């Protein structure tokens, strides 16, 4: 997951409010992303007739693809947003 404007934290001492803010925002973003992904891929890939507790191969492959696509889309959208923000 590529996040915009997230550099490694410099070693300046002290806990500044902005860094905490940034961290909180990032955590929120990541959690939201994850939740949406789980929601969406579950809705698309797993039928509501539960025959078995384990994932079968078809569902497994479907989930792999769903996550991969979700990631790609998130990356692309993020890049576009960043380009827009800079322009």
């Amino acid at each position: 997951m590529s996040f915009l404007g997230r550099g490694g934290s410099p070693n300046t001492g002290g806990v500044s409010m902005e860094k905490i803010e940034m961290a909180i925002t990032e955590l929120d973003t990541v959690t939201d992303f994850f939740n949406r992904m789980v929601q969406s891929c579950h809705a698309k890939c797993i039928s509501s007739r539960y025959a078995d507790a384990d994932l079968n191969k078809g569902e497994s492959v479907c989930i792999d693809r769903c996550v991969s696509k979700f990631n790609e889309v998130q990356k692309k959208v993020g890049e576009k947003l960043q380009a827009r923000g800079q322009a």
Partner: protein
Amino acid sequence: MTTPISEKPVPPPATTLPPKVSGIRTVLRYTGIPPSWLDKRPKLPSRNWLIFLSVTSSVVGMYIYDRRECKRIRQSYIEKVQDLSEERLDTLAWPRRVTVYGGKWPGDEDYDQSMKYFRKYVKPILVAAAVDYDMIAGKKHGDIANRVANDIRLRRRLDLGIDEDPPATQILPTYKAIPERRKLELEGGIVIIGRPTFKEFMAGLKRGWTEGLEKIDQDEVLAKQLEDDTVFDEPEEFDLDQGSSQASTGSKFPSGKPAFSPIQLQRSLPLRPPPGSNSIPEHLNAPPAVIPPLPPMLLVSFTNLIGLKQIPLMIWDFFNQRLKVQSGSDAGYRLVMKATRPIEVPSVTEEPVFGDTATSSEESSLGDLEFDKEAEGYYKNSLKSIPQDIEKAREKYYEALPAKIAIARALSRGTREPTKEEYKNPPPTEVELRAERMKKEKRWRSDLQGWETIKPEAKVAWDERFRDAMRIFVDPPHDGTQN
């Protein structure tokens, strides 16, 4: 004659009933329907109508029949395999994954046709059986060969321990160590669509297992070659430094030769010996004598029809897509069922000493390497002239180049003021000309090399080491009857 009176035919007494009316007529007699309608008899339509209706209905019928057959065939194959997708899979386990190579068909600008064939005819079966796939399309001729060769190089490096997986990957919970990954790869497969792709793949395979392990930057090699070329030489005979784009002020040095030779020597020296940072010991760099087994290959025959002359064939194809569905689904089924056999290529006999290109005995069967040879009959004739076309383009370019160089140099050195048009649209500077030349040369060379790999006269690259390493998917044994 006879007496008229007694022989005169007498009309029968009016005791006959009026003509008996059929059931419908009685029922409908008193509705408002005109009686003539009730008397009508079925009649064939006119000749013109007959022609029109028969032609239209036969065309539509062919189309509908074909598409229904396609659906039926596809569905039957899907039903055969879909139980495989219901098996369990551990959450951290990897599903079976195949790599699909689809190269550019010669003469077709649309490089995606082979992939489209795969997606339309083979993929449904794979999806139904929950087999995952990586699709690798080649945008230009030779792309797949380069990619395969590079992949093999990286794999060799990984296997020999020269490279390692980055530590970030190694701590992931889904990380699998190399031997396990290789095992999973072998479970997978390689799908090759069409003979051009097959040729490219084999060429790349051979190159990958025969070349060294160093990463050779093709751009640098080409740059070096072009640098030693005399195209950008001045009549006063000194070479300007070229190659790196930082030489933006290169054309501004009017000084003579001595000032340049040390700089040029300095630049060229580091390039001559191999980069010292990761020199690989000889014994590792040598091509291995035994190649680890490759995942089994699925050879999917594919013919792309292009050109005006092939339009009748295209039309026939449009109405007979069920054949493609059949062969594609069959291929997918073979892949899913995993029945394999070792590749069969007869051992190469020695080239006769007076080997002539006209010997027909050389045409003896090459076994599996002759996969889909008929498809090459469909290539356009204009493809044969590709090398000459490239040469002509080259000549034209190099004829026009000195003039452009002269203009660029004159302008940059200030020996001449730019004219009004040149002010508005500045002509390319020398650096741009060099970059452009490099780009063109790169394109020409890669096109030429790609065509040399693919052309019908080129033989499929083969190495004896492949014999034990390659396997081919075949029809599963118990499945004699299909559909």
